[in-house]
């Protein structure tokens, strides 16, 4: 469906450039991270990478722990591909792309132990905090994965516990008790087109992706979550190169938090 676009992009990649003149492993600029943009949320952030614009809000709810982890709280990540952000998004229940986005962001946070779930316990076996993270794109100009994951981390950093009297949460009273982040996992999506690798694809580039690998890594470069997408398979060498790019770019993106 996109033969001409693909061959044009590949010839640009061979010449070490892209449609907008960026280098292959260059993110769009500016990248901005704004904290606390939504007062009604316990924590919030707005991230822009180029024209991609994502808002993430965190709400804290009190619930019952899972039976097999009675002294641990949990996170719940939701994402909606809001039709306002992209003419291709249709209204209705979350499509598979929204579900994948939410689960990839979830894994990055959960598996890195960015939050100590034991610290979210109120009364073991009875009450725990659930950290509910909602991802809402305002404008989708490509690379929702990286922008959403960065915004989710920023929103968590911004989160403060609401007052809780043991029975009811008082959302109107935010305490000074901040949610503690033990680690900062950053997701970087590396794209393979032809035999070249790029990061931060824009709308046009996303149309001709052969394969993608979203790599979440923490400060010391340890990997904590991965997701391969796209129709084409990857060789072991591909993955090796993509992981290197993912970890290196993760360090760069982390500086924005």
């Amino acid at each position, binding site marked *: *469906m996109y*033969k*001409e676009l693909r061959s*044009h992009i590949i*010839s640009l990649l061979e010449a070490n*450039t892209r449609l*907008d*003149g960026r280098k292959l492993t260059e993110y769009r600029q500016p990248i901005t991270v704004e904290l606390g943009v939504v007062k009604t949320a316990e924590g919030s952030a707005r991230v822009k990478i180029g024209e991609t614009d994502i808002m993430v809000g965190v709400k804290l709810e009190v619930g019952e722990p899972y039976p097999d982890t009675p002294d641990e709280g949990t996170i719940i990540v939701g994402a909606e591909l809001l039709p306002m952000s992209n003419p291709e998004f249709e209204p209705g229940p979350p499509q598979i792309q929204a579900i994948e986005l939410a689960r990839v962001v979830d894994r990055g946070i959960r598996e890195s132990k960015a939050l100590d779930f034991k610290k979210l316990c109120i009364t073991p076996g009875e009450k725990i905090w659930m950290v509910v993270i909602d991802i809402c794109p305002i404008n989708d100009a490509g690379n929702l994965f990286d922008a959403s994951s960065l915004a989710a981390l920023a929103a968590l950093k911004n989160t403060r516990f609401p007052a809780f009297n043991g029975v009811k949460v008082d959302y109107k009273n935010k305490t000074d008790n901040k949610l503690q982040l033990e680690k900062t996992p950053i997701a970087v999506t590396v794209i393979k087109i032809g035999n070249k690798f790029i990061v931060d694809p824009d709308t046009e580039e996303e149309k001709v992706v052969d394969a993608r690998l979203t790599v979440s890594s923490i400060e010391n470069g340890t990997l904590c979550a991965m997701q391969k997408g796209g129709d084409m398979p990857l060789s072991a060498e591909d993955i090796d190169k993509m992981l290197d790019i993912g970890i290196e770019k993760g360090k760069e993106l982390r500086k924005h938090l």
Partner: protein
Amino acid sequence: MSEIKVKDKEISVPGEVLAVGMDVLPGAGTYRDGEKIVANRLGLVMMDGRTVKLLPLSGRYMPRTNDTIICKVIDVGFNGWRLDTNSAYSAMLSMKDATSEFIQRGANLTQYYDLGDHIVCQIVNVTSQKLIDVTMKGPGLRKLKGGRIIEVDANKVPRIIGKQGSMVVMIKDATRCNIIVGQNGLIWIDGEPMNEMLAIQAIRKISAESHTSGLTDKIKGFLEQNMPSKKIHQD
């Protein structure tokens, strides 16, 4: 006595009173409400004698007969192709209008134009129900190979083309790119990667500053600055 409440080249918004009085006439983009002439859209005020009209600054493309447009093939049927025109309406290209070659009945049409191909075609007819017929028979009408396609606001196309094509020719000469501008806001550019990018920057600049004066000189200066080897000659 009539009173004109806005200046030429001022931006006007829907509902804004542009003039009061019966001897001012409502032009395109305006309507009369009793004594008042009121803006019927967001636009740029243009005084034309005693007529006030508004030039559109935005708005999706509306297909018109005789327009040359760039379309994408979205469906291949038995005796024709369905095309995306970058508007709310798709167009039909039938076998008989597709090419000056003879196409056998029952031939595989994808060998001429396949799904995803971009073509330059001309609108032959638009019905009241917005059914659109196009033709590929005509000078300059063809399938596009190579190059890249960008989208601009269709309202800016006249400025990008310029008087008798002068603006787009200036960009083509300076960047040594082949450029075809569709009335529907799709533009095809083909050249060296860096030159393509310069041409695109020039086009985006024209789009953004379409109603400022001295635009031709500004673009000339911009191109000369970025392609110093090329001095631009203007007629």
